[in-house]
């Protein structure tokens, strides 16, 4: 398992640029890069109304992992993409590397072939960028210390909503 990347400002900008280029060329509505745990690393575009992208990311990661496992169990070692066809919106998930994937949501204004084509190219770029980000992990300064933590209160406040 590769180490988890730290998103530096420059790294985040590069990822975003790749996504924006993908969105533009594939004519998708929304795209995001997520890790296999379901965490969003970068995103751009406009998701379908009422869609919570944090939830979308968690479900996409779970769905992709489950289908890949399914493929493995029937003896299929090759599994790079998953496509969900809907009546208004379609979802394409493409593996960038073992730990990262590209999720694209698109409507009827484009075709799955076009999205697939650019998704594969973008996934390759993302894989390279993720390797660079992982290499930078060791140079990152601590963002907070144990002393900072000791100065804080509870991590979560139990504040029931007012009825």
């Amino acid at each position, binding site marked *: *398992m590769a*180490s*988890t*990347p*730290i*998103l*530096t*400002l420059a790294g*985040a*900008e590069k990822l975003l640029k790749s996504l924006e280029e993908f969105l533009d060329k594939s004519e998708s509505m929304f795209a995001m890069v997520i*890790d*296999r*745990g*379901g*965490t969003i*690393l970068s995103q751009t575009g406009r998701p379908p109304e009422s869609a*919570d992208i*944090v*939830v979308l990311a*968690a*479900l996409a990661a*779970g769905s992709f*992992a*489950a289908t890949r*496992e399914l493929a493995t169990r029937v003896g299929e070692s090759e599994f790079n993409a998953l496509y969900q066809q809907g009546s208004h919106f379609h979802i394409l998930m493409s593996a960038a590397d073992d*730990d990262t994937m590209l999720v694209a949501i698109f409507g009827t204004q484009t075709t799955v072939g076009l999205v697939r084509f650019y998704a594969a190219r973008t996934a390759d770029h993302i894989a390279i960028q993720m390797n660079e980000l992982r290499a930078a992990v*060791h*140079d*990152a*300064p*601590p*963002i*907070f*210390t*144990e002393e*900072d*933590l000791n100065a*804080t*209160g*509870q*991590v*979560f*406040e*139990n*504040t*029931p*909503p007012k009825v």
Partner: protein
Amino acid sequence: MAIINYANKEVQFKIVYYGPALCGKTTNLAYVHSQIAESNKGELVSLATAADRTLFFDFLPLNAIVIRNFKTKFQLYTVPGQVIYNATRQLVLRSVDAIVFVADSQWDKMEENIESFRNLEENLARQGLSLDTIPYLLQFNKRDMPNVAPPHYLDFLLNDRAVRVPSFEACATTGQGVFDTLNTISRLLLVKFAREAEAAAVRSRPSGSPIAGLAAGLRQPQPNR
């Protein structure tokens, strides 16, 4: 491992609630969801069967404290407890940062608790992880039931390791112990994260540095209680 995003100034962690079937993992998340302010929580998503048993996972994203201008975010997951869903449990454990093991306190559930705990160890090992390195704690749930084992017996069964972890009595349906559990596991996780980052920073300094000795201190195992 946590994800640090310097662009958004946030750090994200994944906590998984693990335990035998019907021990109250989903109830823990539902209670947390009901008590957290609207602005600090996302949607509670449950992928469940028609009989409301967890099929894949429950998922609850939460915003927590801000430390040094970095927002901390936690994603809480549950696994399906039923034995047949082991492949799914392995998937949910991916990229896990910390674990809450929820045990059912009822006497007739002891075997299931032990089985589930062993299953957790096996599934972590498949990912190259271990309870010796990952923050975790125990929650003894369903203390409101009439036929429950005493906490020291549950500790004897599940917490008899070189380093004993914190354990909490709970009744997730009323909320007793739910936030104690969540706050403690979150803090354990944040402390581990801070220590590792500090140790890494010290390691990357020249060996003659006056604070190089700090790294050794940070690597010492710390008793949890």
